[in-house]
């Protein structure tokens, strides 16, 4: 064997491996290593393992020695030829065949097409011996995607293998199931997989769970009736199975948080046990107890506790414990720490935990490792939503990261800046972003950062001038990458102005746009999208302020059409722009004389192959021939924003039709009344639906899904289950109303067990579910509005506290300046309320009216746009946020009761569960049984109308708030001041803010 190809041994670069407890030595001389490897190869060849022929070893070797990609390709192609020939020979011994398949895998791995051999791999999985079967399964999972035609040939074998009494066969089949089973074939294997959930071997249970998880991702409705099975598996006595169950549960909870609130206690107690090292030693990883399970659990808790105070309170202790126990010197410890920070920033804020999180972040940011800095920046981005002041402590670290040569770190920092943009720092941030955008070639990221620039500019622009200039820069450098909608938005913005009453500002905006565009036209090679905007604006407003003559503008437009003669869209825009200019001239009573180049251009377009261009050119010709009055009514100036009324009934044709009918023409029969046709088309439609919703059928009749159970009252069913299994619908619905806002309250209604999607409703009255779910969602949104408003208020008062204690460190003046422009600036509240105003208008128009909206409206807009919570408009005069000067305790004492009751019940059951039985298995069942008790407690406690609970929730928040005392008052005063001035700094009163902000 040649030494050269073996010189690629692992060298001592991995310091990380040394950490692991296995005693190994990576520091070895390459020569020795070679010998060893060769020896090992030889022994393995004789021992068994995998039989490799000389041929295959030679192939691998020659590819290893290949000096160029071309040479490698040549070798592989000749190998493919050999394989093609050999593999189709009759009576190949199994062992030989296995080797061929492995060689095919190798060829495919190198990026060549081995599809000629797929069928042989499929044949191989039919084999009886596991040895051969396993290779077959490996090959098909690597070769085929779930939509491949051959899948249908595999399903049958998989079905057979899932029934095998050898668990290794079952495992191999389950591996294939995870990769290959598609939406259509799920019903074929689903019942068997559900059975396997109770298999004696934990490896099988684990894989079965993961298969169901995969099915859920592919088609959520296929496994939605199996939720109870997942809950049961959560108490499996094998930690591996329990860990695997967290995957599907995470997905389910992501889609519908409210149905799983009852599991909070169980998750918390599992996490507690994991953190206390109750799991077998084998799950330790680098001295951490089962960190991967911890991370998964923290992710789930973050979802469950998100803006749910009650659920979050159950988590505080355990998360705090983990913060303390994490070993921040190891990578895995930091991974868990990071997940803790994510969890803390997602659940209902707790000052103590926020402090720990801030500590962890500052440790990350101060670290030398780029990885940790990266995570620190990311974590910072999450935490500033809750406590914005934390960014200021780390401003220098952030700026260092921004200037770091590492692109990944830079981009992450831009993401952070994007999250903390306000009207005071938008100029600096967007400028930086544009600079960076110009310096990179990665189109994907360029598009992203360009759209972010546009978004920020639209939201926070300090002046029209700046806005136009910024948009110009973005278009110039990333023009063809930005979405065409952005261009349309820009045109509309220029046309509509900023929505204020005074027209001078609007016309100033337009003139400055025209001016800058005329200037930019001098540059070569502009992106098409940008040219379209330019043409449109020049046509519409080029001569509006009388600064430029019509002949000057038309000359420019002709130049554009000539210079970009292969871009039809731009030419079309240019012709229409020309038409507008001429029309305005004629309407104003001036004489129009076409430039010679314009004449030649028109002649060219009149004979153009593009019918669109031709049409436009003829229209232009026709318009020029008309008199002033007619032209004015065709193309009135500055009317692009006015709606055109369309007479859909085409009433102006009535006379013509009447005439035709009188002459004996057939009257028109609407499509719906042409009966014969209708039935056929309807039938066909239905047929189509059936096909798409059911797909392949593998047995005669499907088992009825558990629809009926859904309507059975809870008590009778739930008592038989080990874990709270929320099959019954009613309790779940009412439970939902008492807790946090649902992400999509529709999720509940889609979970109804009958699958109606894709099937035409033909009979029966409408179910009552939709109406309940909508009423829920509105009330929830209101809760959301209030809760978050309060939350941001408290956050703000904290801001004041720490703001003063901020330290100034010695740093270079440039950085200081940058830091000041990014983070600094006094009068936090002003900025905030400004952003609040802005964000309440999420569309691209600037703010139009300052009339305060009702809190509900704002809240619902929030949820639909998913603005980060710190942008919430707490300046709005909602009842709740301005009330706290009254005594909240007395007023709402009575209403608080249900909440306390429930939480005490919760506490009770959790402590009982934890103390009672020491062994894990017992604990799981115990806890979950306890949790179940609690479930019914909650139900009884919260059966009052949802409003009560809602108010109860807010009361407690206010209690927390009022303890802040003067700070709150202070901020409210500021707030009031801002509202009194009634400003958004960008548009109406920029000078005022210039004074305040310096």
């Amino acid at each position, binding site marked *: 064997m040649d030494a050269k190809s073996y010189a*690629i*041994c*692992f*060298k001592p*670069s*991995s310091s990380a491996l040394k950490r*692991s407890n*296995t005693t*190994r030595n990576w520091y*070895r001389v390459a020569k020795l*290593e070679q010998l060893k*490897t060769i020896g*090992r*190869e030889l022994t393995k060849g004789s021992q068994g393992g995998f039989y*490799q022929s000389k041929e295959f070893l030679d192939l*691998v070797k020659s*590819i*290893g020695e290949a000096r160029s990609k071309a040479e490698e390709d040549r070798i592989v192609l000749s190998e493919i030829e050999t394989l093609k020939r050999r593999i189709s020979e009759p009576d190949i011994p199994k*062992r030989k065949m296995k080797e061929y398949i*492995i060689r095919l*895998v190798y060829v*495919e*791995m*190198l*990026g060549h097409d081995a599809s000629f051999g797929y069928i042989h791999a499929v044949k191989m999985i039919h084999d009886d011996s*596991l*040895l051969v079967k396993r290779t077959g399964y*490996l090959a098909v*999972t690597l070769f085929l995607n*779930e939509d491949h035609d051959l899948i249908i040939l595999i399903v049958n074998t998989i079905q057979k293998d899932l029934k095998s009494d050898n668990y*290794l066969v079952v495992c191999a089949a389950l*591996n294939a199931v995870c990769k290959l089973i598609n939406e259509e074939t799920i019903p074929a294997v689903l019942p068997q997989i559900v059975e396997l959930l109770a298999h004696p071997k934990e*490896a099988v249970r684990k*894989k079965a769970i*993961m*298969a169901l*998880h*995969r099915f859920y*991702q592919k088609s959520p409705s296929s496994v939605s009736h199996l939720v109870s099975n997942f809950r049961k598996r959560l108490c499996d006595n094998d930690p*591996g199975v329990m*860990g*695997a169950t967290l*995957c599907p549960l995470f997905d389910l909870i992501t889609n519908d948080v409210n149905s799983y609130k009852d599991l909070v206690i169980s998750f918390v107690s599992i996490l507690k046990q994991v953190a206390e090292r109750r799991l077998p030693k*084998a*799950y330790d*990883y*680098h001295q951490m107890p089962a960190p*991967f399970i911890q*991370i998964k659990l923290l*992710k789930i808790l973050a979802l469950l506790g998100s803006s749910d105070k009650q659920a979050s309170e159950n988590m505080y202790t355990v998360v705090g414990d983990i913060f303390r126990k994490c070993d921040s010197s190891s*990578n895995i410890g930091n*991974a868990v720490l*990071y*997940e803790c920070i994510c969890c803390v920033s997602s659940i209902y804020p707790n000052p103590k935990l926020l402090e720990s999180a801030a500590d962890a972040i500052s440790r990350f940011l101060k670290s030398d490792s*780029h*990885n940790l800095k990266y995570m620190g920046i990311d974590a910072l981005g999450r935490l500033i939503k809750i406590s914005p002041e934390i960014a200021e402590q780390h401003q220098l670290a952030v700026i260092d990261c921004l200037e770091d*040569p590492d692109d*990944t770190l830079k981009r992450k920092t831009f993401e952070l800046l994007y999250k903390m943009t306000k009207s005071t720092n938008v100029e600096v941030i967007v400028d930086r972003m544009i600079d960076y955008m110009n310096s990179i070639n990665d189109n*994907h*990221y360029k598009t992203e950062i360009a759209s972010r620039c546009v978004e920020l500019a639209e939201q926070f622009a300090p002046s029209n001038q700046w806005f136009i200039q910024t948009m110009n820069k973005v278009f110039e450098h990333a023009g063809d990458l930005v979405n065409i909608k952005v261009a349309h938005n820009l045109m509309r913005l220029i046309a509509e102005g900023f929505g204020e009453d005074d027209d001078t500002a609007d016309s100033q905006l337009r003139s400055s746009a025209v001016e800058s565009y005329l200037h930019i036209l001098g540059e070569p090679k502009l992106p098409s999208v940008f040219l379209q905007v330019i043409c449109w604006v020049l046509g519409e407003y080029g001569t509006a302020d009388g600064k430029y003559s019509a002949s000057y503008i038309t000359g420019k437009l002709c130049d554009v059409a000539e210079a970009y003669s292969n871009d039809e869209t731009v030419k079309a825009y240019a012709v229409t722009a020309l038409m507008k200019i001429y029309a305005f001239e004629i309407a104003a009573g001036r004489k129009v004389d076409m430039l010679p180049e314009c004449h030649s251009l028109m002649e060219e377009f009149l004979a153009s192959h593009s019918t669109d261009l031709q049409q436009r050119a003829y229209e232009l010709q026709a318009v020029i021939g008309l008199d002033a009055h007619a032209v004015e009514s065709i193309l009135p100036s500055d009317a692009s924003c006015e709606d055109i009324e369309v007479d859909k009934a085409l009433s102006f044709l009535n006379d013509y039709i009447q005439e035709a009918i009188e002459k004996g023409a057939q009257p028109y029969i609407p499509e719906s009344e042409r009966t014969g046709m209708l039935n056929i088309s309807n039938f066909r439609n239905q047929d189509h639906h059936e096909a798409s919703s059911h797909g392949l059928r593998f047995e005669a009749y499907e088992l009825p899904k558990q629809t009926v159970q859904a309507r059975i009252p809870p008590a009778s069913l739930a008592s038989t289950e080990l874990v709270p299994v929320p099959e019954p619908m009613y309790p779940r619905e009412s439970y939902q109303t008492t807790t946090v806002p649902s992400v999509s309250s529709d999720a509940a209604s889609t979970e109804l067990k009958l699958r109606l999607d894709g099937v035409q409703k033909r009979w029966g009255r409408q179910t009552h579910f939709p109406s309940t779910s909508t009423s829920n969602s509105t009330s929830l949104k209101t809760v959301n509005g209030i809760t978050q408003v309060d939350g941001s208020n408290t956050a703000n008062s904290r801001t004041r506290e720490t703001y003063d204690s901020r330290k100034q460190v010695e740093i270079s003046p440039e950085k200081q300046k940058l830091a000041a422009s990014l983070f600094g600036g006094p009068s936090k509240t002003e900025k905030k309320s400004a952003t609040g105003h802005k964000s309440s208008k999420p569309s691209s128009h600037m703010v139009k009216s300052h009339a305060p909206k009702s809190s509900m409206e704002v809240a619902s807009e929030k949820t639909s746009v998913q603005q980060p919570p710190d942008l919430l408009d707490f300046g709005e005069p909602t009842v709740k946020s301005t009330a706290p000067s009254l005594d909240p305790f007395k007023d709402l004492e009575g209403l608080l009761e249900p909440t306390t009751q429930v939480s005490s019940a919760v506490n009770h059951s959790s402590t009982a569960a934890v103390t009672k039985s020491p062994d894990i298995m017992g604990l799981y069942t115990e806890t979950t049984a306890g949790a179940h008790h609690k479930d019914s407690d909650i139900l009884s406690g919260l059966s009052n109308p949802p409003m009560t609970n809602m108010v109860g929730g807010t009361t407690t928040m206010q209690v927390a708030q009022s303890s802040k005392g003067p700070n709150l008052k202070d901020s409210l005063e500021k707030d009031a001041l801002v509202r009194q001035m009634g400003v958004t700094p960008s548009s109406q009163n920029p000078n005022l803010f210039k004074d305040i902000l310096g």
Partner: protein
Amino acid sequence: MIHFVLLISRQGKVRLTKWYSPYSQKERTKVIRELSGLILTRGPKLCNFVEWRGLRVVYKRYASLYFCMCIDEDDNELEILEIIHHYVEVLDRYFGSVCELDLIYNFHKAYFILDELLIAGELQEPSKRTVARLVAAQDSLVETAKEQTSSITNIIAQVAK
């Protein structure tokens, strides 16, 4: 979720690929080319993460071999880094101080091990011991199967005599 796992040598040679999300053969080649261009050129002190088409690629270098995993934007990068390390440790335990050559010649075994570790783009088994036991069970079954076939061939050979 992990979208794919790639093992690339420093020279850009592919050692192992596993795709958990659907990619056509053409896309795969493109992905590998793009990523090896992106990752192999990065300096040693930089982040082990790369942003790529709206996803993240976490990579770690062991001697001349780069282990890469592509994940969603909201996944925990440090965790993935440890999953890579976890895989390497399992490989190491299985092969007994693993080196690139082991993976070159026994890539199918590396696949089998990966299948016990990750499934459907998620970590299915956090315990090294369990993975090792499962792989060993499969191997021993292969051994017995082998003995059987050889004994059968012996019998046939004897009968044929």
